């Protein structure tokens, strides 16, 4: 699961021409540390939903990698 999430996040980084991550840390913040804007967050949710069948933003905003792990 963690590897898949890393793949998804790196696909978004690639699309933005930004450096990819070698690993994710639970405390990383999506906006501050990953540099995700609202469009990237939307992309993240549709890709996670496609892969895992879970809408991570269904009941409120998710801010960190740790919170995504918890949802999955």
């Amino acid at each position, binding site marked *: 699961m963690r590897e898949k999430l890393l793949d998804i996040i790196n*696909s978004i980084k*690639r*699309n933005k021409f930004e450096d990819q991550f070698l690993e994710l840390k639970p405390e990383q913040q999506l906006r501050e540390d990953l540099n995700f804007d*609202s*469009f990237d*967050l*939307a*992309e993240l*949710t*549709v*890709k996670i939903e*496609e892969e895992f069948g879970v*809408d991570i*933003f*269904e009941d409120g905003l998710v801010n960190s990698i740790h919170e995504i792990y918890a949802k999955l």
Partner: protein
Amino acid sequence: MFFLIDRNISLTYEEILQHINHSQSYTDCYIYPDLRSFFLNWIFALVNEKNITLVDSDLSEKEITSNNLAVDQIIKIDVPKRLNSVDELVISIRYSNSEITLFTSGTTGFTRKFTHPLKNLIRKINISDERKNDVWGFAFNPTHVAGVQVFFQAILNQNLLVNVFMESKDFIINAIENHKITNLSSTPTFYRLLLPLDRLFDSVKKITIGGEKSDNHLISQVEKTFPNARINNVYGSTETGPLFSSENDEFIVQDKHIGLIKVVDDELYIHKNLFGKTTQLNLIDDFYATGDLIEWIDDEQRNFRFTSRKNELINVGGYKVNPYEVEDELTQHPKIRNVRVFGKSSAVLGNVICCEIELLSDTELKEEDIRHFLNGKIQNFKIPRKISFVEKIELTRTGKKKII
């Protein structure tokens, strides 16, 4: 003399005459088994001045019940009209007082019905000796307004129709060659799926494009493949019948239309006088709001271009995205055959722009290639965030791309 060739089924004008002269009844709301039966049934009703409702042959039980349709109603005629010649047949169709009921379907599903007097449906039909030898590639659903237009154009000029609707690319190419098709009329989606072709087709003299928004890139590709064809881009709808035509994607407000069309918040409004008798439209001060959005090209407001459908703009985080603008950019990619851009609801932005891409055979593209391609061409918020590559883009009953 043939009227119809539909794979291994055919129908001649003489057979139509025989059918008219030996039948006593027709079927309303006919769930027809094949195109030959469909046309014979309809022509019989027209010749006998009877009203008829045309429905798709693949209606589901649910669609039949939710639209309160009484399908396959046999209507007997006490003294059916008898005809002596094909010329008489054509004249009795042309001057029939039948009313024809059609359903809107298009891009948003099977919904409302509209009844048109025949003379309203055929007012744009050209009948002349020059058109006697036309051969039509029939590339529309026969029960919808565009197919109805092609049917009348062909039969009133005693032409041949070769059915190519929803057929494969190879089938269509063979049909154009074998039957020396001179006229093609279909949706932009049809031409996008047919092109590019590796050779030219000289036999085609006229190409009509309509039913969906078209663009100049597609029109120029069509021009290259069919060098002898005059191209006609048309605008009309089930609600209004045919209205405007043009050789490219710009339409002109003709003198006779001044005062009869207006634009409110970019939406095209059409005066009721432009579409004849129909009581089923919601009118605002005698104008019908088409739902089609346009932009003026000149200051005098005589030339315009369609930009989108009102209910098809996708709201992404407060920005309005026109899916056609994105599709137009993507279809210019040399490896892309067809695309469909649509919105998917998102808790973050309201909607996320998604797209399905059909590639040309033996080509490959990755998600990031698409993103790179679009980057700088359109604004960031318009760029699809979910990109899927599909074998085939699903089409509606009328051969258009599905919106949702």
